[in-house]
């Protein structure tokens, strides 16, 4: 009887550990995927979407009272992606996330080499020669940054100061002069 109780106790405990780990590892990712699917359905993939009120993009923005956001859900299965960004004279950052919400790349206005720059995203199996050739081409200069994502899908988030009308106007001007699309 005692060994039977111990068995079921251990069984229950192992179930709890398995469910705990599964929940922490998969449910948050599933929530993120849902939001990315909603964003893609609304704005399409490989396109920059402003996080205006009641948009799927806004649902990914955590501090909308003080920051303006623009997001681009990307899918590199068709080839590399180019994010053209204009950097305003205020706080600005770009962060590229993988499908699990992990940061792949980040850059802010103080680190940006130029006020206008291009970030090229290549997927997990990039052809090194193609990257070298592309880097040599006239399209890529000092203001071009190449990022190997290690994943085919993900999301890029542009953030800029937006706590008052002036900051928000600067942020939106910069986002409107930015784009996300096939390279």
């Amino acid at each position, binding site marked *: 009887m005692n060994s039977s109780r111990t068995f079921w106790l251990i069984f*229950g405990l*192992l*179930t709890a550990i398995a469910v705990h780990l599964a929940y922490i590892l998969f449910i*948050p990712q599933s929530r*993120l995927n849902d939001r990315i699917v909603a964003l893609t359905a609304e704005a399409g993939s490989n396109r920059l979407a402003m996080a205006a009120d009641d948009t799927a993009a806004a649902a*990914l923005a955590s501090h909308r*009272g003080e920051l303006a956001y623009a997001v681009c859900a990307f899918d590199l299965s068709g080839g590399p992606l180019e994010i053209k960004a204009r950097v305003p004279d205020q706080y600005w*950052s770009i962060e590229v996330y993988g499908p699990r*919400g992990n*940061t792949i790349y980040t850059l802010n206005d103080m680190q940006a080499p130029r006020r206008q720059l291009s970030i090229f995203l290549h997927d997990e199996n990039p052809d090194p020669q193609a990257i070298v050739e592309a880097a040599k081409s006239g399209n890529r200069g000092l203001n071009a940054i190449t990022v190997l994502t290690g994943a085919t899908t993900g999301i890029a988030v542009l953030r800029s100061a937006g706590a008052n009308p002036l900051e928000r106007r600067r942020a939106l001007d910069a986002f409107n002069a930015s784009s996300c699309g096939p390279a």
Partner: protein
Amino acid sequence: MAAGSTIRFASSLLIGAALGVASAHYMAQQSNPLVNERHGRWYAWPTSGDPRSSPYSQARFLLDGHLPEHFTEVTTLYRSHDDDGGRLSQSCVYLVSMKRPEVRRWTLSLVNDNGAATSLVTQDDVISVAGNVDVHLADVPQPGNWLDFGGEDPGRLVLRLYDGDERASPADIDASLPRVMRERCS
């Protein structure tokens, strides 16, 4: 005998699953002291890229549907209580007092339980005297710097320090963290 085993199997499975979900929820809670980083009554969650980040801190952001900002970009600190341990309430007036943070940008805001900012000040909005900043939290207008409760009890007071390209050290963070003193209650 077979029916008894089935019942034991089912009940162990159900109890185990319930415990697993409940413990996962607890670990990913906003104020969980086991995972977050404490600075007095302020707390912070290790964010993306932070060596101290864990699956729990990552889960905490994603469960809210948000993408964690990289730890080199901004440090976000929260608190729900005043210095005496009382929960922040709209029926009271509080004085938030701090040295002006030496970071490129900072914001102080009140957020509701849904995480939406109901009131916010930035480094550009505040009057500071001799490098000190005092901000009142109240439901009615106050002289000087003021954050409005907006007719509801706040979920949290949030301080965000934008660091540029380097994370402020814990000592720098501690030195710049505001005190929150209850002045009076109605």
